[in-house]
C-alpha cells in the first residue's frame, strides 16, 4: 500500500454518501478514501450496494446526500459538461464488458479516443492495436465484432478499452465473474499489470476472494450500505471482524444474512 502524501488530497474520497431507491436504502452513509496510485478492492455480497457506489462516483447515479471528491474537487453538483470533462480521468471495465456490439473490436477500444478526444481514426486505430497487444490480443482480433468473442476475450477487450486513453482512475466491476478459474487468473494478472504500467488508481468491486487477494493493496468490506472494515490486503485473514471472516471464508453461517431483493 502506498501512503498518501499529506500535500495531496486523496484521489477519491466519499463522505457520508446516501442513496435510496424509493423505500430501499442502498448506500447508508459510505465513508471511503482511496489514495493516489493505490489499488483498493471493495468486497461484499451481491446486492450490498457495491455497483451503486461506483456509479455514484462516476455520476451515472446521483447520491441523495453526502460528498464525493475526486482530487479534492466536489463532484456531486457538477454540470453535465464538467462531468464529461471529469470522466476523462476515469476508465471502467464493466461486469458484462458492455462492448458496443455494432462496432468492431478495434473501434470499441478506440472509442474514447475517437469520440471523447476527437483523435483521427487512423491514429486511434494504431493506439487501439497497441493497447490490445498489452492485454494479449493480436491485431487480427480488431476486425471481429464483439459477439464473435468468448467471455474472457470480451473482458480483455473491455480492459483494453478502459485503459486506452490512459485514465488516472480505473474501476473494475466484478472483473472475474463468469470466467473459468484460469481465465480469471489471466484477467487478474492483466489488471495488476495494466494498473502498474499506467500508475493509475484502481477500485475493484468483487466477491471473488482469489481476485481480491491478487489485485488489492487495501481491502474494504461493504455491508448493508456501509463500509464496515478496511485494512491491508495481508490482514484480511485476521481482520477480527466476524462479517469479514464469514465472507472471506465463504461460510453459510454467520452474522451476514442473505439479500433477497436485487438492487
Amino acid at each position, binding site marked *: 500500500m502506498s501512503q498518501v502524501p499529506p500535500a495531496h488530497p486523496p484521489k477519491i474520497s466519499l463522505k457520508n454518501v446516501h442513496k435510496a431507491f424509493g423505500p430501499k436504502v442502498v448506500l447508508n452513509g459510505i465513508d471511503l478514501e482511496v489514495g493516489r496510485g493505490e489499488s483498493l478492492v471493495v468486497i461484499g455480497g451481491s446486492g450490498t450496494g457495491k455497483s451503486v457506489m461506483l456509479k455514484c462516483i462516476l455520476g*451515472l447515479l446521483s447520491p441523495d446526500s453526502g460528498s464525493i471528491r475526486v482530487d479534492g474537487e466536489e463532484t456531486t453538483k457538477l454540470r453535465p459538461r464538467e462531468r464529461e470533462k471529469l470522466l476523462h480521468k476515469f476508465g*471502467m471495465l464493466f*461486469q458484462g464488458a458492455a*462492448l458496443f456490439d455494432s462496432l468492431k473490436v478495434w473501434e470499441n477500444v478506440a472509442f*474514447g479516443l475517437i469520440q*471523447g478526444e476527437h483523435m483521427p481514426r487512423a491514429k486511434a486505430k494504431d493506439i487501439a492495436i497497441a493497447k490490445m497487444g498489452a492485454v494479449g490480443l493480436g491485431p487480427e482480433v480488431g476486425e471481429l465484432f464483439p459477439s464473435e468473442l468468448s467471455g474472457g476475450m470480451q473482458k480483455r477487450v473491455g480492459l483494453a478499452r478502459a485503459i486506452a486513453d490512459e485514465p488516472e482512475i480505473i474501476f473494475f466491476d466484478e472483473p472475474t465473474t463468469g470466467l473459468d478459474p484460469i481465465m480469471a487468473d489471466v484477467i487478474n494478472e492483466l489488471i495488476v499489470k495494466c494498473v502498474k504500467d499506467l500508475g493509475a488508481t484502481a477500485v475493484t468491486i468483487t466477491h471473488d476472494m482469489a481476485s481480491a487477494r491478487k489485485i488489492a493493496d487495501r481491502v474494504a468490506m461493504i455491508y448493508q450500505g456501509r463500509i464496515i472494515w478496511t485494512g491491508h490486503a495481508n490482514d484480511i485473514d485476521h481482520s477480527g471482524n466476524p462479517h469479514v471472516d464469514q465472507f472471506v471464508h465463504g461460510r453459510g453461517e454467520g452474522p451476514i444474512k442473505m439479500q433477497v431483493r436485487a438492487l
Partner: protein
Amino acid sequence: MGFLAATGRAFLIFLEATGKLAMFTAAALSHCVRPPLYPRQILRQMIDIGYYSLPVVGLTALFTGMVLALQSYSGFSRFQAEGAIATVVALSVTRELGPVLGGLMVAGRIGAAMAAEIGTMRVTEQIDALSTLSTNPFKYLVAPRLIAGLTMLPLLVLVADIIGVFGGFLVGVYRLDFNPASYIGRTWEFLEPVDVISGLVKAAVFGFMVSLMGCYHGYHSRGGAQGVGAATTNAVVSASILILVWNYLITGIFFSTK
C-alpha cells in the same frame, strides 16, 4: 377512500410519466442543435430510416393508391362521378394516406428497432459505458435518430406520394380503361401545393415522434429481455397513437375552414 387513493395514484403516475417525457424531449432537442454532432451516426440512421424503409413504404403506397382507385370507382359510378377518381386518389394519398400509413409502417419498422437496440444497450450497461468514455448518450444515440427521423420521413413520404398516385394510375388506366393523358390531367387539375406540403409537414412530425418514442422507451427500459420487449411494444404503440392524434391536429391547423 381506497378508490380515491387509487385514482390519485394513477394521476400522479401519469403526471410523472408526462414530466419525464417532457424532460427527455427537451434534453434530446437541445443536443440536436448543440455541437459536437456525430455525422457518422446521423448518416447511419438516415440510411436506416430513409433508404431501408423504401420497399416497405413504397409497397404500402402502391397498393393504397391501387385500392383507392378501385374503391372510389365502385362507389362513384353509382352517381356517375367516375371522373373524380384521379383527384380523389391524388388528394387522399398526398394529404392523408401517404404520411399516415408511411408513418405507421416506419413506426413498426424503425421505432421497434430503436427501442430494442437502445434498450439492449441500457440493460447491458453499454449506455453507462458511453458516459464513462466521455460521450454523452443523448448526443451519440438519441440526437442522430431524432434528426434522421425528422428529415427522412418527409423524403420517404414524397416518394410514397408519387408511387401512390402511380398505383391509382395503373388501376385507372389498365383496369378501368381511363385515357392515360386525361387521368394525369385530372390528377394535376385540382392538386394544390398545400396538399403535398401539409403531408410533408405531417411526415416530419411523425418521423420525430417515431424516433422520440423509440429512444425514450429504449432509454428507460430495465430488467433484461422482458424489459426490452416491453419497451419495444410501448414504442410502437405510443408512436402509432401519437401519429393518429397529431394527424388530426395538423389537419385541423392546415385545413380548418373556420
